């Protein structure tokens, strides 16, 4: 159930290159490799500037659970994209997709979230 998948979706990322609201993404240089975390459990969505932040936990196939952190665009950019602070609630089980930080482990630049109802929301 809980599978970390690495995919290459180059065409998709061309479209999303401009989504980085604040810093140009130099801390998340590899945008061709997407990390997919199924069965992530939401802890908190910090809906703030200059960057939002998604805190969640994820258990790997060996049963090891750890806290993860996802970086999002700032709240003004989220608002403009129709993503509001009620996007997720604590305890929600979701799939988080994103790109790895170049030095901090378990830190992603989140590109989309698959909500409990199956809808996938692209994040700016």
């Amino acid at each position, binding site marked *: 159930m809980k599978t970390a998948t690495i995919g290459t979706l180059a065409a998709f990322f061309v479209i999303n290159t401009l989504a980085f609201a*604040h*810093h140009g993404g130099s801390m998340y240089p590899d945008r061709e490799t997407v990390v997919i975390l199924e069965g992530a459990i939401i802890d908190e969505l910090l809906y703030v*500037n200059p960057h939002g932040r998604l805190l969640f936990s994820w258990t790997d196939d060996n049963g090891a659970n750890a806290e993860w952190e996802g970086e999002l665009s*700032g709240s003004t950019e989220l608002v403009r994209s129709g993503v509001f602070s009620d996007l997720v609630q604590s305890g929600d089980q979701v799939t988080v997709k994103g790109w790895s930080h170049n030095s901090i482990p378990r830190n992603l630049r989140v590109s989309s979230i698959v909500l409990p109802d199956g809808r996938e929301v692209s994040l700016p």
Partner: protein
Amino acid sequence: MKQQFFNNLKNISHSILLITLSILTINGYAQETSLSGAWVMDDRGSWTGLLPTNSAQEVLAAFDPSTGDPSMRCVAPALIRTAESAPPFEIIEQNHQILIIYESFNVVRRVNMDGRKAPEWLPLSPVGYSVGTWQGDELVIETTHLTPHLLNDDGFPFDGGSDARIIEKYKVTGDRLEVEFSVEDPTNLQGEMATRIFTYDRLPDAMFFHYHCDPLDATGWRLPTTENPLRDLLQWLELRPSIPE
């Protein structure tokens, strides 16, 4: 009697003004060539000539965004990194000044169009002192009196002060705005200048938001995570004003 005269004059001139505005907006002509309005990033382009001197190379190597990037603690970044941000900005043309208002970090720039020079005593700032001139249908802005700041997220340093300046060229074609930034900074740039071109799209009926940023909840503003967190904590606290007993 005099008051009545001016009231009449006001009414008449209002009518003329309305007619004038109507003529100007026929076929959207006025809008097509005007900088006025809201703009949003289309293409960020990339740097040309951003070659560091030896001293700049040292600064770059030591850069840590969690402590070295003021925007992480809600302090507005300077010109180019503000212009690079995703939120839109608004340009308002007046006779004596052109205002550029970025949603990002609520940055307000005033470009002097009446030739007023910076007074001698003017302190440096992240937006500096800007003087604009029209060269044909291109607006050229020269900005001086800038504080030292970052040119990109990797921490490329800009020296500020009296020897460093930034030239911008604004040109509108239809609903597209091209802005060329040229940076002169002998301390940090190997060549004469570095340039970057951004393009923006016109954003009709734009809605702007207040950029609320509280350093208490800003993400990314953290102690550097090294092997000695206690030392880092004390070092970090030293940056803050001391507490009188």
